[in-house]
Every structure is written in C-alpha cells, then in structure tokens.
C-alpha cells in the first residue's frame, strides 16, 4: 500500500481497502477502514498520489502533539546505555502531489487510539498513549498498524533510574518505511524527572523510504535537533 502512484491504486485486505475508481466523470478515491469510509473526487489531470505512514497524533481528532510510549520499567545504572526496540502506533496518510504542493487527501489508522496526560492538568500535555513490549531485537508488528522504534536510552544521572516511558514530539518525528515502518531515537536521562528524547533524521537501515511529514516545524533545523524535554518523570 505504501508508495507513490501515478496510475491505479487498488489495495484490499481484511481491515482496509484503498482504491481509485474510474467513473465516466471524475476519478474517485475510495477508502474503507474499520467500518469507516472516505470518498473524494479527484481532478481529471490529477498529480501523483502518495501513501505513507505519518505521525500518529492526528486521529480521531488532533488532540495531542506528542506520542507517549509506555513499557516495562527498566533500571539503568549511572552511565549505562541500553538499545531497545519498541512498537508505536502509526497512522496512514494519503497525499495528492501537484507541482510543489502536497495536499492531505485522507488520514486513517488501523490502531486503537488512547490519550493520556503527561504531567499536571495545568502544566502538562495530552499525549497519544501506546503500550509497547520491551524487546532487544525488532519485534514482529503488523505493517499497517504499528511501527518499530529503535531507542537508545542513556542514563547521564548519578543514580540508578527506572525508565518506563518515553515521550516524543511530533514536530521532530521522522518516519521511514521499507518492509516495516521504523524510526530511530535517543533518550538521555538526566534525572528520574527529566530526560530528553530525540528522533534521528537518518533512517534506521539503508534503503528505507522517508515519509512525508505533516508537521512543518521539523523543517527548521533548530527544532529538529532540540527534541523533546520530558520534565514530568520517566517512570
């Protein structure tokens, strides 16, 4: 399903169906996913249609701009670092590219949505919540439902810290797809309350395709490098 389409689109499995219907009038984009349908007419001289995973913070409503991944607590001694593989939910974006303009045609998701509060109601933020298993090798995931996050956690604090969650800003999220959707990130723990997370701009493995990103702030290099400062705890 992921890719760039100049001609027909036709993808159907048990959960989702995406196709381009050629009618006597205008071509029509038709999608059905988990009982929800979307239909749009396209201009006859339409451009390229691109389907790729996008930051999982848009559905069913754009209430959160951060992704929070919870996992089994891991105790990290001072100075230690650990590479982990986690799963994260994905949303699928369908784009219409015409010239320099890339327009979002449709967004849908096969994963369940749950929101959470990171921090306090007055100073915290709403996050898209996801629970992941803790793996030392890439886990098996459903390609159109979940992606794989390669996360390296470093404990820079002078004490052993229990880490059981990581929060990422969608502004600096970079997704890539190949056989699976993947991203690679780092988490530097400064104390049990404070850590910084970053998503790397390079693909985790060679040959992966970079996804079109919805959030324009990530085009600013300063924002990209800044990552997200978790100030309300890592466990």
């Amino acid at each position, binding site marked *: 399903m992921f890719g760039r389409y100049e001609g027909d689109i036709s993808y159907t499995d048990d959960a989702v169906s995406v196709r381009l219907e050629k009618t006597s009038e205008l071509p029509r984009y038709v999608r059905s996913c988990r009982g929800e349908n979307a239909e749009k007419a396209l201009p006859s001289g339409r451009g390229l249609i691109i389907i790729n995973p996008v930051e999982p913070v848009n559905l069913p409503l754009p*209430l959160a701009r951060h992704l929070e991944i919870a996992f089994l607590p891991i105790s990290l001694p001072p100075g230690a670092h650990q590479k982990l593989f986690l799963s994260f939910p994905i949303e699928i974006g369908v784009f219409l590219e015409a010239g320099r303009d890339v327009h979002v045609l449709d967004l849908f998701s096969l994963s369940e949505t*749950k*929101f*959470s*509060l990171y921090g306090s*109601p*007055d100073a*915290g933020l*709403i996050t898209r919540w996801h629970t992941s298993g803790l793996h030392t090798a890439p886990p098996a995931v459903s390609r159109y439902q979940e992606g794989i996050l390669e996360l390296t956690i470093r404990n820079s604090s002078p004490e052993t810290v229990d880490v059981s969650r990581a929060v990422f800003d969608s502004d600096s999220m970079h997704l890539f797809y190949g056989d699976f959707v993947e991203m690679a990130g780092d988490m530097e723990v400064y104390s049990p309350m404070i850590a910084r997370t970053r998503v790397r701009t390079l693909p985790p493995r060679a040959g992966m395709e970079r996804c079109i990103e919805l959030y324009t702030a990530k085009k600013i290099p300063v924002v990209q490098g800044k990552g997200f400062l978790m100030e309300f705890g890592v466990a």
Partner: protein
Amino acid sequence: MIPVNFSALTPAGTDAFFALIQSDENVIGTTSPAEVISFVVAVIFAYIIGVAAAFYLKRRFSHKMKKDQLDFWIKAVRVLLVIAAISVTIPAFFDASLTIIAGIVIGLVAVFALAGQKIITNFLCGIAIRYEHPFTSGDYITAGETSGTVVSITPFATIVRTTNGVSVHIPNEKVYAGDVSNFYLNVARRYDYELGIRYRDDIGQAIRIITGMLDSYQFVLKYPAPEAFVSDLADSSVKIKVRVWFPSAWAHTQDDVSLRTHILPEIKRALEAAGIAIPFPQRVVWFGNETQKNRPDDR
C-alpha cells in the same frame, strides 16, 4: 438637481489651489498650507497601504492564525502605518501656538469626560484581560450567567457565542471584575458522575464493569486513570461515584451535556447487561398491627 461646485476643477480653481499651497501664509501656528496638505495626503496614503496590507495578511495567514490574533496584527500594522505617516509629517505642527495645543488637549479631555467613566474602565479592563490572558478566543468560558465560546476580545467588550448560537457582548469590566471559569485553559478536565446500585448487587463487580467500560473509551484518559468508588450508603441505593478525565480540547468541543449522554447511557447498559440494576427511590412503611412474622426479613 444636486448643486455641484466645479470651480475647484476649473483652471482658475486649480491656479488658486496651487497658489494656496505656495503661499507663505500660515494656517495653523507656523504651519504652511503645503505642510497641512502633505500631512493629509500622508495619512490617506498610510490608510490605503494599511487596507492593502490587511488584505494581504488575511489572504496569507487566515488559515494559520486565530481570527482575533490576526485581527490584532492587522490593526497593529494599520495603526503603525498611520503613526509612521503622522510622525513623518507632524514636526511641521510643532510650531503651533500654545493656545491651539491647549485647545486640542482640552477638547480631547472633554470628549473623554463626556464618553463616561464606564467606557474608560471597560477599555482598561480590556487591556488587563489581554495582558493577563485568563482566556483567549476559542476558549469555552462561563462569565457571570453567560457560558460559551469566546469569539473575540474587543477594547470594550468580550464577545461570547453561546451553545445555541447567540452572540453575547459582555463589557470587559464585568468580565475582569467577576468570576470567570475557563474550561479550556488546562489541558485536561475531570467530570464526576454519581449513580446508585441495589444493596444486593455486587459492588466490586459494578466497579469493575464501570472502570473497564471507561478504560475502553478512547477519549477517557489513560492517566489519570478513571476512578469508581462507593461514595455513600444512601436510603435506596449504594452510591458509586465515577471520576473521569478528558482532554479539555475534546470536552470543549463536546460540551458537558453531550459527554453525559455518551458516558452515562453506556454505564447503564453495561451494568444492566451484568444484571446490576439502578433502583428507584423507595421507602418501606410498616404498620403497627402487622406481626413480626409477616415481615419479609427480620427488620
């Protein structure tokens, strides 16, 4: 017929006009007619540029900024342009006599005095609201007896659109001096519900059903987790209180009433499916002539 004086357009009128511009005769203090005309032309020019700038800003940013923020910047640009035009041309007026300046100042004071204290108070309160930011446009607030979404904050009033589509202008003084609840300021908001079950129903099972149902609802926050606990042993039922946290942005778009219509019916259905009933209020009355053995229990 509308009488029209074309004399200004005639060659003689044009000559008189240019003669007036070129004359050394002062019209205000030491200000010449040419300086007065350049002042007027500069202000008109700044106004036209301001209109063009407003059109451009609206076209460029209307889908990226809140309406009141955009209006604020448009006003700021237009005011700055006019101030720039005035500041370029006004030095010529500095030689105006003290009497004229005093007259203008007294006139302005009189206008403010006539306009009344209320207007000044509302204006100052408007500035205070903008400075303190107790709410912004798009927030759902309750101010006094009015609840609704803030459409804009003008210098003198806050305009609120109620849920039934009525725009209410609340003077800024009332908003600033009164109690204002902003349902949108914090990112999450808690709702409390209370329901009763029969004394013979299993409390633990009821609580498990309620929390399980709430946990599966996508807009109920994972953390803080929903709570359900016995809050009262009332006359006719065991009261269970339910506390649920939602993202304010969602609860804002779906007001409190619709939240209840989603959550409470679902809880009722889930409880009834498990054989747990929500009892009606009831009172058992025993008469003195009834024997103890007729009573269904030992009470």
